């Protein structure tokens, strides 16, 4: 579903954030990218749909080239890739429902959408997605009046509204009360199980990673230092990822 070959990302001025990553992720996997902060997890995820421009290497998603794609091709690939951010990144002044509706932007007629008009079936789908994360009753509330946990669930609904084949989640629980970690990860697991979507989630918390992942990929200094099932994560593997500093 995702094929990454020799991916390299140098952030200006000269930080090598991702340093030659090869990775193949199959459909339906729940991959957790594990690593300390600064290991390049965020940059890696952002390079997968070119929110960050890769310096070298190739990325393919669902059999389609991401690197080297034209503007129109890139948009059409992005549409298939839902993204969940650490800071939720909702548009504050829009309602919860309108935020979810923006997930349909890649499908609807551009000019009509800019005028604020969305087809009825896209609106219905957005409502459905909001209901799926249990927030149907908050549809008309402005996004910035919602709690952090609610905002992140709206963001998940927005990603689902894209009818994606892949969801990328960058530290989706790091900005939340630790008590909410479980509910967000549980929501992601449900998406993975029920819809068979491929999930790539970055996490710096070892326990959470081991609990939810079907596969762990360990990052350190922009390189993959471990790749295997959670059961294969031994103390020495943890050491190799975190470099002695226990998580």
């Amino acid at each position, binding site marked *: 579903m995702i094929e990454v070959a020799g991916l390299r990302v140098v952030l200006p001025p000269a930080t090598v954030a991702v340093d030659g990553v090869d990775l193949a992720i199959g459909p339906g996997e729940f991959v957790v990218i594990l690593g300390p902060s600064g290991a390049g997890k965020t940059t890696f995820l952002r390079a997968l749909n070119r*929110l960050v421009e890769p310096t070298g290497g190739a990325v393919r998603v669902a059999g389609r080239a991401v690197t080297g794609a034209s503007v129109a091709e890139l948009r059409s690939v992005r549409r298939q890739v839902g993204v969940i951010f650490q*800071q939720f*990144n909702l548009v504050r002044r829009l309602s919860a429902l309108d935020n979810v509706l923006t997930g349909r*932007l890649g499908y609807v007629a*551009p*000019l009509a*959408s*800019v005028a604020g008009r969305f087809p009825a079936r896209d609106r219905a789908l957005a409502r459905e997605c909001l209901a799926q994360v249990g927030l149907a009753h908050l549809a008309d509330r402005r996004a910035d009046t919602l709690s952090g946990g609610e905002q992140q669930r709206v*963001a998940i609904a927005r990603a689902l509204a894209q009818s994606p084949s892949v969801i990328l989640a960058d530290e989706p629980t790091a900005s939340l009360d630790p008590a909410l970690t479980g509910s967000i990860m549980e929501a992601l697991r449900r998406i993975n199980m029920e819809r068979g979507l491929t999930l790539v989630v970055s996490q710096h918390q070892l326990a959470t990673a081991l609990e939810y992942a079907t596969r762990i990929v360990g990052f350190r200094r922009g390189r993959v230092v471990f790749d295997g099932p959670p059961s294969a994560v031994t103390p020495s593997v943890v050491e190799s990822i975190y470099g002695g500093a226990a998580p």
Partner: protein
Amino acid sequence: MRRATAFVILLALGWAAWDTGADPVRLVRGMPWLVDIVRRMLPPDLRVLPAALAGAATTVEIALLGTAVAAVLALPLAFLSARNVAAPAVFYPARTALNFLRSVDTLVYALVFVAAVGLGPFPGVLAVIAYTTTSLAKLYSEAIEGIERGPVDAITATGATRLQVLRFGVLPQVLPLFLSYVLYRLETNIRAATVLGFVGAGGIGFYLQTYLRLIDYPAASTVLLVTVVMVMAVDFVSSRLRDRLV
């Protein structure tokens, strides 16, 4: 270093005071004349009130129409001169052109437009449009540069087009600021428009200048009072509206 800077600043101010003939003694000597003028203004001659009110209405119209047109014209210019939206090849020329045009004040534009289209309120409207468009474009573009990156990333990630990203990721963040800048500009334009009549570009300034020239101080004071009330009224309404926006 700091001491040297302070010295240079003091020197510059001292020279400016000498060069402009700024002299407190002269001010004190002039005080009786100031009192005399104020005394001659009282009581205001209310017979000219209808003319003053008509002039005030024209001034408000000039400011309203000019500001409204400029608020729209400034939009595309703002996106072209915002560093985080426009390509560098567009951004630098646009920003330079704006800075160039903005260095000319409304009153100077009025002189130019009076020469071009003749006397009356219309050149006043054009002058307000010319100055306000560039100054709003600058304020708008700074608002655009100050937006949060996150929502823009999120909208981009959905596969949205550039225009959709502007509409859903950028516009909701800047629209309240834009409206508040427009109202703020309306307030300053009312003030600017009061003197447009001095150069023949219509409004209440024409009456003020006429009565001052005729040395009819009671009539001039009526015009001044109307001006003050008009400016305060617009400020009041505008600031109430602005409070609602945030």
